């Protein structure tokens, strides 16, 4: 799965949890500060990513995954981009 495909899947998941228009969201935009994602929605996004890509974010870094690029890079580094 290409980076673009992974990002598209991430956008779909983010759309589900945020229920917002993501058309102007860039891959480096902060999901909390710029999209206004609340803390529970951010956790639901991480949970969905973990389940669908079969990855596990380090507990102590849960607050660090706040851009689409960071999420995508983590999935790629875990070698699970083909799972979802």
């Amino acid at each position, binding site marked *: 799965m290409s980076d673009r495909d992974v990002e598209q899947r991430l956008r779909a998941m983010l759309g589900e949890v945020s*229920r917002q228009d993501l058309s102007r969201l860039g891959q480096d935009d902060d999901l909390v500060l710029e999209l206004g994602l609340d803390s529970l929605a951010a*956790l639901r996004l991480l949970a969905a990513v*973990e389940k669908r890509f079969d990855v596990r974010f380090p507990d102590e870094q849960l607050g660090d995954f706040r851009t689409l690029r960071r999420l995508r890079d983590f999935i790629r580094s875990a070698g699970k981009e083909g799972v979802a």
Partner: protein
Amino acid sequence: MRIGLIAMSGVRVRTPELAALGVTLPQFVNRGQVIASLPSLGLLTVAALTPPEDEVVYREIQEVNPNEPLEPFDLVGISSFTAQIDEAYGLADRYRAASVPVVLGGLHVSLVPDEAAGHADSIVVNGAEGAWSRLVDDARHGQLQPRYAGLRAGVFEAPAYVQPRFELLRGRPYNRLTVQTSRGCPLDCEFCAASLRITSAFQQKPVPLVVEEIRAAHAVTDQPFFEFADDNTFLNKKWGKEFLQAIAPLGLSWFTETDISVADDDELLDLLADSGCRQLLIGLESPSADDLTGVDPHNWKQRHSSRYLEAIDKIQSRGVTVNGCFVLGLDNHTPEIFGRVKEFVERSQLLEVQLTVLTPFPGTPLYDRLGREGRLLRPRYWDRCTLFDVNYRPRGMTVEQLEEGLRWLFGEIYNEREYTRRKRHYMEIVKRRL
């Protein structure tokens, strides 16, 4: 007339040691900050009650700057939390000195009307419905009366009901928008200083009106997170189900306050999850029944406390988080309460926790009782009604033990490790439901 409606917002902890903790602990004072940043639904309702020929300007003031020039108005209405009422009085005094008539209203004013009257040309007690339109007309004719009594019942029925003017919020950044579905709560907890003090009985808004308000509020902002500004939203389970079925298609994420009995109804719990409920704030007050004697006149909470753990698990297993509220310093609390709350939080896996100190807000039965018992530390302490500062002598411990215990518990519950543990637990629940 150009009418300024001013909401005093923002609350600060007064005890220096606690204020310092707020800087270092991620979740401490979190709920207080959320409340302080909510729009004033009361003043949006006042705006809607204002005759259309008058211009309404809605303002929120976090901190009054006495050197700033006053915005010009023909009439000013101010509403404030108890903790900021002195700043509200100061602002009112400045407007009056400039010959601008001032009206004070809201919960604090309703509970301490004689005090408020000393800083206003007029005060409104109870809800604004049934009072404000007449007040504006009187002001227009220079015949403002010193006191107006709004309705205590029938506020959600014609002719009293109006839809709050949500469009006044357009262009402002809010984390959450509020819609009210009810006023009052029959549990009548002794310490409660919420809307039950300005209602004669529990009042519930018809579902179609709530849905219209949600649509109206949604139209002025991209932010879809709603908070239902109620004391107890799901008291009436039949109404609750009708309501949840109606809002499920709206695609909301939302939060509200209710009591533990929601867990008794599986259908209601499923509807909560399906309609986008993200969190229920529930006043547990204390982990065990012995502590809860007399918290409410019928000991309702005491009778339900044995099922707290099971109920929290049932709710949270739906992906709906529980914000469990504990009030420290109840009459039956001794210094060992802090350890017991910590243990309960760990056992219950509560995803969010609100720790506050028992606060005798003026005008409440608690305030009257503690005053009679000579246990209030100061005759007047409104700026310390923050829910974190201690203003009375507890029965089962000293003031210092309560303050120290609070600080210890804040550290135990709100530290990064515990916060992370709660976050991970929530994620695992969400994953199981996907």
